[in-house]
């Protein structure tokens, strides 16, 4: 073979190896966590190992739409994961256990199912039990219907309620403990011992509710609601979010029947602007629903995602659809 031919063939071989071999090799050395919408597989991988105290460096990419990453019950800023691009984060855990990571940008109807776990220091799959939620202690059946027979004629005003409350001696029922364990309707009933009109009683109820939260908490609750709840429950709490129709359609078509009724099938999200149901719900009941989720109704379980404080803030915000908080 002529030397020029040999040279040419060598050049070709080198170019091909370079163009194909090098990227291929580098690709095998680049472990990425791929995010897909839940319908296409979710997180891949969805279980990550880590060690206490050792920084965990994670690199992500999305294979379809924009996603995000955050770890539940950890105080951290979420990291956006853009399609076709790589983002990263470094986490350090000081306690062993199983942490849940989740998607933070709505990526479809099943966005909330996009979760995975980080197993820190080879903990056993059974996590140590969390503290018993209030609704369990109180013995509440959070799936039972809750309807207030009497609802306010107009949106109650905490401003008026504050002035009225000063004329009453209701310290024993103004405590935080009372607030978390009782529904607004219950407080309304307990106010029957006073001489207030119906609407005045509701005003006092709304004031009591407002005094059990702070503007900061409400703002936090609003932010959490917008990012996590509004897509199904609606931006104004009316249960008419962008996915409401899809949930209802899924329920109609699946007719998942437990115990002979339709209580546990996918359904339209709860309407927080509906006073009948909302005013008969105590914060403990709402906390239960948020923690545990809806058992097939499409309501996600947030127990591993939100901290307790976040859930109370969110609950406080939910009542703002019923009361004219300022």
């Amino acid at each position: 073979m002529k030397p020029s031919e040999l040279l040419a063939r060598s050049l070709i071989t080198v170019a091909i190896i370079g163009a194909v071999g090098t990227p291929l090799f580098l690709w095998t050395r680049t472990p990425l966590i791929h995010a897909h919408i839940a319908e296409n597989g979710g997180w891949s991988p969805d279980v990550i190992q880590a060690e206490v105290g050792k920084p965990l460096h994670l690199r992500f990419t999305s294979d379809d739409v924009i996603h995000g990453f955050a770890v539940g019950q950890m105080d951290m800023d979420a990291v956006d994961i853009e399609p076709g691009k790589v983002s990263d984060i470094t986490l350090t855990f000081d306690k062993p256990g199983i942490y849940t990571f989740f998607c933070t940008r709505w990526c479809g109807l099943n966005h909330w199912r996009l979760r995975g776990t980080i197993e820190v220091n080879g903990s056993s799959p059974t996590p140590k039990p969390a503290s018993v939620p209030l609704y369990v202690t109180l013995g509440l059946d959070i799936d039972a219907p809750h309807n207030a027979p009497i609802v306010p004629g107009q949106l109650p005003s905490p401003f008026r309620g504050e002035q009225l409350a000063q004329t009453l001696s209701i310290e024993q029922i103004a405590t935080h403990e009372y607030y978390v364990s009782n529904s607004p309707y219950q407080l309304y009933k307990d106010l029957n011992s006073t001489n207030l009109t119906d609407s005045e009683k509701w005003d006092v109820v709304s004031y009591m509710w407002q005094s059990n939260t702070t503007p900061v908490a409400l703002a936090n609750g609003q932010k959490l609601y917008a990012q996590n709840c509004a897509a199904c429950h609606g931006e104004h709490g009316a249960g008419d979010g962008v996915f409401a129709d899809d949930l209802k359609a899924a329920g109609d078509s699946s007719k998942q029947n437990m115990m002979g009724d339709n209580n546990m099938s996918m359904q339209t999200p709860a309407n927080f602007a509906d006073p009948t149901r909302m005013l008969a719900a105590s914060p403990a009941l709402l906390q239960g629903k948020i923690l545990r989720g809806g058992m097939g109704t499409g309501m996600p379980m947030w127990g591993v995602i939100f901290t307790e404080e976040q859930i109370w803030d969110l609950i406080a915000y939910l009542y703002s659809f019923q009361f004219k908080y300022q």
Partner: protein
Amino acid sequence: MQSRFFLLLLVMAGLVVAFAPLPVRLIAPQERTFRIEARQFAYSPSELNVNPGDTVTIQLVSTDVVHGLYIDGYDISAEADPGQTAILTFTANKSGSFRMRCNVTCGAMHPFMIGKINVGKNEWLYRSVGFAVLGVIGFFPLSSLHAQQKMKDKSGLTEKQ
């Protein structure tokens, strides 16, 4: 010489088509609000009509994944997560037809997720049609004049092209 005169006429007609101001109906600018639902891979409504000078507010509602809305020509955009309506307000001071495009990668057909905003009339389309008409109409006399010219120049020659 005739063809040169005709060419000049064509060019002038072309300039008229390009730059002559079209009759404008003076409509007082209004404030308009549109609610646009974005899904993979279309906007609904996909075409908006406003008048020049209007203050336009677009409420972008994403119904499945995060979408954006970018307006050609105005170079403004908004991005909406499902559950969080985004508001885009601008004054429609440029008239014509502008495409709206999604500027957040939202899936395979994302580059073709397109809508249209018509501010006033699509003037440029009318002018283009004018050019096309001019091109076709002016073409015949020009080419026959050109042919006559060539015949005169080549009297006697029979070289095949």
